């Protein structure tokens, strides 16, 4: 386990206990006819390969190069994002919020783990952690520092707590020195954290 620091409660013995418990549950639900194991495989495959932050990165890169799309994204994100084929579960009602030199947006769900699945996939462990849910609304500048990012003191932090079924996507600022890049290359600069607001778009290719 690579990130045991963020995964405190799960010691390895505990993991195997959960492994047994979840296997028994799947066996039971399958025998009862409530779930179909192949459908479960397909759900996992979807979120491992098809649906992830690469979707959101495509949305952001398009907004960076296409003013009309950006305007559409900021006025009706659900429709603009759907036009690229990203719809559905945990992204039924989307709002996109743009970072500017004056305002930095950050998205959290203090009550559970609401997250825009169609554009970002499944949330990372830290997004669901007590530390993030507790701190983001009180000290977003400190949260950003936890991610190693510092913004000027005059920057306003605008935190969006996803308490209903509206899901938020941060449109990060396009990095300087990227005028020569095409849309696909720009998408490579868009990190998942930049679209949550706990990071910035990359100034250099990785």
């Amino acid at each position, binding site marked *: 386990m*690579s*990130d045991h620091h*963020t995964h405190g*409660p*799960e010691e390895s013995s505990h993991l195997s206990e959960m492994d047994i*418990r*979840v296997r*028994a*549950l*799947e066996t*039971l*639900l399958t*025998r*009862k006819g*409530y*779930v*179909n194991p*192949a459908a479960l495989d397909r*759900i*996992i495959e*979807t979120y*491992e390969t098809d649906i992830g932050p690469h979707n959101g990165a495509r949305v952001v890169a398009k907004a960076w190069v296409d003013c009309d799309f950006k305007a559409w994204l900021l006025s009706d994100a659900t429709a603009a994002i759907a036009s690229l084929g990203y*719809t559905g*579960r*945990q992204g*039924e*009602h989307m*709002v996109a919020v743009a970072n500017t030199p004056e305002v930095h947006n950050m998205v959290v769900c*203090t*009550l559970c*783990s609401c997250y825009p699945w169609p554009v970002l996939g499944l949330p*990372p*462990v*830290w997004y669901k*952690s*007590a*530390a*993030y*849910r507790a*701190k*983001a*609304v*009180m*000290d*977003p*500048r400190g*949260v950003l520092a*936890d*991610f190693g990012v510092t913004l000027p003191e005059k*920057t*306003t*932090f*605008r*935190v*969006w*707590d996803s*308490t*209903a*079924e*509206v899901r938020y996507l941060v449109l990060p600022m396009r990095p300087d020195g990227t005028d020569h890049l095409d849309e696909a290359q720009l998408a490579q600069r868009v990190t998942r954290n930049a679209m949550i607001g706990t990071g910035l778009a990359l100034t250099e290719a990785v």
Partner: protein
Amino acid sequence: MNGVHDMGGMQGFGPVLPAAHETLFHADWESRAMAMTVAMGAAGQWNIDLARAARESLPPAVYLSSSYYEIWIRALEKLMLERGMVTATELQSGQMSTPPVPVARVLNVQTVDAALAAGSPTLRPSVRPALFAVGQRVRACNMHPQGHTRLPRYVRGHTGTVALVHGSHVLADRHVSRPLPPFESHAEWLYTVVFEGPALWGDAADPQTQVSVDAWESYLEAAL
């Protein structure tokens, strides 16, 4: 419910610790837990707010000491036990000893993609005009319901400004009022309300911070 799930502004959890090397799932059981939770949600015997209520009402110490997918599994078992879909003995053994309960839908490989792509929109036609408008000052009610609510404690009693009006959405608090379908789907106007950091946190706040929540109309009252 004033539960431990309502974490905004709590202190003592330490810094946020991003993982150096992230993986989507840390063990096979996590991916199966996620998929079973999604699939059983699609079965239609509860809705998203009933699922949230089941997670939030786990014993506080259990909630705080469980990983997120463990919370999901505990809540999934609870939801099925409450509806007689499984028994405690069956959960222990994995062996079926009681007949299944009919469910609205069982996802299969052919129907998964469409189900995920459709989701469960909560927007409903508005039956009356919105009470509040963008720019209006509103106060979050000082309410402490025993049941499920989506108004976090840290904004209650505080005054903010309406920033967005989202149309009428199914009200979470009433979405849980019937445990089985057809669910109560009363909808209310939903607003994004922005609060100044110092209004919420006093001197502890960075004055350059603004925090919004999405609040249904019945969570709010007009303020000066």
